[in-house]
């Protein structure tokens, strides 16, 4: 039962800390763009608190899917974080939810709600944004699945907690060429899934990507926004659990180290997303995805021929 406690703990702590790293990223981004930016790292907290005080406006055509959309978006983001084996190991009660397929399909649930809410809002931009979100998944999923499949076949299990421990103990790892190549393509998939430029632009609310957020305001908007930050953390967490799992035995220290590592990834992504324009979906994005798929395919071939 203690694993369930740690599972709840890790979600709550990350929920509390995640806006801080978003604040750091925003300051850094502003500096890189020679803007002044927010005064300190706590701007995201202030934004959310302010949003929670505001009253709300919603489109009158929407029904419960849109109205509870922010809650379910936040909820699925939190569920994704909960199933990351950060503070608990294999064999514990909590680890029976920590399965690669569970993670993939919970993130599908996030897209599902996102899509319906975007159409339900009746907003012309939201619908396009929802559609784009689905297309991104179409590009990313083959890469993600192929890389993960290589890892799962090497580990002979789909349980994330067990995979993590195997990598930690050196039973599988970078000494295997297939694993090493898969890590590259998975890194790409993770970056795209975390919704950054040049693939997405999380900050551009009025633009297409997060168009669905365009119709949310007040506490709804704050929750939806926080939910998307959680999802990004969860995606980074998945990469860390498989490809960089070394951490402390002690759950509290492990959680601390995880937040530090994930935070560094989250902030470091600014260095990539700050340069270059956003890709068009069917041209540059597609060629990028094909390149990444080729990498993951190499990993698969390496596994199949048994290197």
């Amino acid at each position, binding site marked *: 039962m203690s694993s369930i406690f740690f599972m709840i703990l890790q979600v709550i702590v990350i929920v509390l800390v995640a806006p801080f790293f978003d604040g750091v990223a925003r300051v850094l981004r502003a500096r890189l763009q020679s803007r002044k930016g927010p005064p300190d790292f706590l701007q995201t907290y202030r934004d959310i608190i302010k949003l929670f005080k505001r009253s709300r406006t919603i489109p009158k055509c929407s029904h419960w*899917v849109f109205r509870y959309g922010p809650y379910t978006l936040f909820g699925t983001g939190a569920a994704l974080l909960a199933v990351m084996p950060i503070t608990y190991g294999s064999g514990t009660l909590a680890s029976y939810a920590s399965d690669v*397929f569970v993670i993939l399909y919970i993130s599908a649930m996030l897209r599902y709600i996102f899509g319906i809410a975007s159409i339900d809002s009746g907003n012309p931009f939201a619908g396009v944004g929802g559609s784009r979100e689905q*297309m991104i998944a179409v590009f990313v999923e083959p890469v993600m699945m192929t890389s993960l499949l290589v890892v799962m076949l090497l580990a002979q299990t789909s349980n994330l907690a067990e995979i993590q421990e195997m990598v930690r103990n050196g039973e599988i790892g970078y000494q295997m060429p297939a694993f090493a190549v898969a890590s590259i393509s998975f890194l790409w998939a993770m970056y795209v899934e975390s919704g950054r430029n040049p693939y997405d632009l999380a900050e551009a609310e009025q633009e297409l990507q997060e168009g669905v957020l365009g*119709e949310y305001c007040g506490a709804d908007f704050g929750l939806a926004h926080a939910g998307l930050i959680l999802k990004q953390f969860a995606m980074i967490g998945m990469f860390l659990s498989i490809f960089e799992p070394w951490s402390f035995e002690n759950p509290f220290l492990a959680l601390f180290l995880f937040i530090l590592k994930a935070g560094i990834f989250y902030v470091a992504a600014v260095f990539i997303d700050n340069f270059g324009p956003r890709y068009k979906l069917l041209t540059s994005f597609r060629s990028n995805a094909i390149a990444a798929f080729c990498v993951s395919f190499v990993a698969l071939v390496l596994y199949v021929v048994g290197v």
Partner: protein
Amino acid sequence: MTHVYLLYLLGCVVSLLLYKQNKIAAKVGFSISAIASGYGIFYFLMNLSGTDSFSLGENLLYNPTFSLDPLGNFFSFVVTLIAFASSVYAIQYTEEYEKKGSLAVMAALFNSFILAMLLVLSASDVFWFMICWELMTIISAFLICYNDSKASLKAIMIYLGIAHFGGMCIMAAFLLMANQSGSLEFSSFSSVSLSPVMGSIIFLLAFIGFGSKAGMFPFHVWLPKAHPAAPTNVSALMSGVMIKVALFGIIKFCLWLPVMEWWGLLIIVIGALSSLLGVLYALIQHDYKSLLAYHSVENIGIILLGLGTGVYGIAINSPTLATIGFLAGLYHIVNHAIFKGLLFLGAGSVLHATHTREIEVLGGLAKKMPYTAFAMFIGVMGIAALPPLNGFVSEWFTYQGMMQGALGEGIIPRFVFTFSVVALAVTGVLVVIHLKLYAIIFAGTPRDMKIWNAAKEVPFTMIAGMMFLVAGCFVFGIGASVVTENIMSVVTSFSGSYNAIPATGQIASPIGSTISLPIVAMVISGAMTLPFIIAVMMKANRTKPRETDPWACGFKYSKRMQITAGPFTGDLRRLMEWLFKSKPTVETDGYFGPVKYTDHPKDIWWNIFYQPIINATEKAADKIGCLQNGSTNMYSAYILGTLCLFLGISYIL
């Protein structure tokens, strides 16, 4: 089992006797089939791992036996499960057909359709199997006739044409088999020894024959035509269970024949192709019922992935691989029956309320039909395999089975299995796009106010039928360990066994992956409550929100601004242009007039596989037509010639 069969027969006879009282006949007929199905659900569930049989009278030429083994019990359970929901649904739904035809006959046909399916599952010799098989086809074709239109007649002809071809292949497979074993009884088939070539021929015939009925690629063309044409309660049965009865045939044959490796791989490749192409074609449909029919193609593909893994497991003598494969296949069979039945019933409710099958004119119906909306929401979630609903569990098993297959030796099997895993994952992503099925119909602003104003929630029994299946989606998902235990008792009756339920609430695969659906459900529901707690703790402003029009960049909002089903998948359609071969046209009329945009993506396989055959047949018919010249003397000459020919043949042999 005889009780269940007799109840359906009773329903059939009683509704025919009430022919004059049309309305009462429908109520009574469908109520009896609901009672029979309800009884059947309990009966087949209780006797799942048992066997049962009965014989028809001695004076019927010979003494035909009908018997059910655990596999037959399982399929009978699936049939009665969906039959129950659609019978309950039909009680009030069929009032719509009062003017179109006799409801008494409809109820009788409906009862006998279910009975025919059950008899196919329990027939134990070639003669009765084929008789019931063809009865099943014919009765379903009659039921489609209730929606009388040119399109539905054409659909019936295509359906019957492919069913005919399939029936021929099955018949050939059975006769070859009987020739080798020396008896028409199924019991003699299991011990027959066949040469590899003969075995492969029989397998291919059976696979094509049953596969065409199941709607696998490339024999899928009849599904999207015939299923939408039928009345909803019948579509639910056709799409939910009739195509599964065909899979029953494939499993039967694979258990009789000396299985070879490439059969399993062939089934997997066809399964992967069916699932990908099925979902891609489903995405571009504007008729929501044919969209669902294409989804059946996709799900048959997923089931074939599981069954193929099982067949491959038998071939390489790996009992655990065979077990997980069949477990995955059977689990997905029941799951698909549940959510596809649910979606068809939901679609039928929408049709009932709006009288249109065109998705693009609907919208905003959730406010008018909250229960139907909820049912469809859960149905789409189920088909998209989102945890903790039922679709997820069976796809998890399918993934595990294929992964175990990919762990084996040999480069070709490894490639086949790994690619199929990726294909299934891509299918999973594409199915999520089917949120548009829910969203365009129920969410947003109504696109046609006239339809929206006229729409109202459907009557009670229709909702009850849907809610029964909604409950099924949850029970077969969260209660995965109980369901797995039951399906395992079926699978172990003809295959190996492994510890699939290591502890209460958990399910496991032979390679050792273990998940616990109750915990997954708990995590998700726990995480869903978190934002509410946060909102309360942060004292969020929870005053009632103002309701306005959606924001339209400062323009006045119009309902034509919102996205529709076509554009929602527009990027995908452009990406897959080579597969759809659509030629979009754009007509503009000045700056202020609306732009006319047409786009008709096609199922290209029709032109590749079917059109040449149809053309050749028509040409051949023209040529042969000269034989039929109307002269009786010539006809007698034909008969004489034929007799001489056969005499000659028999003399030579």
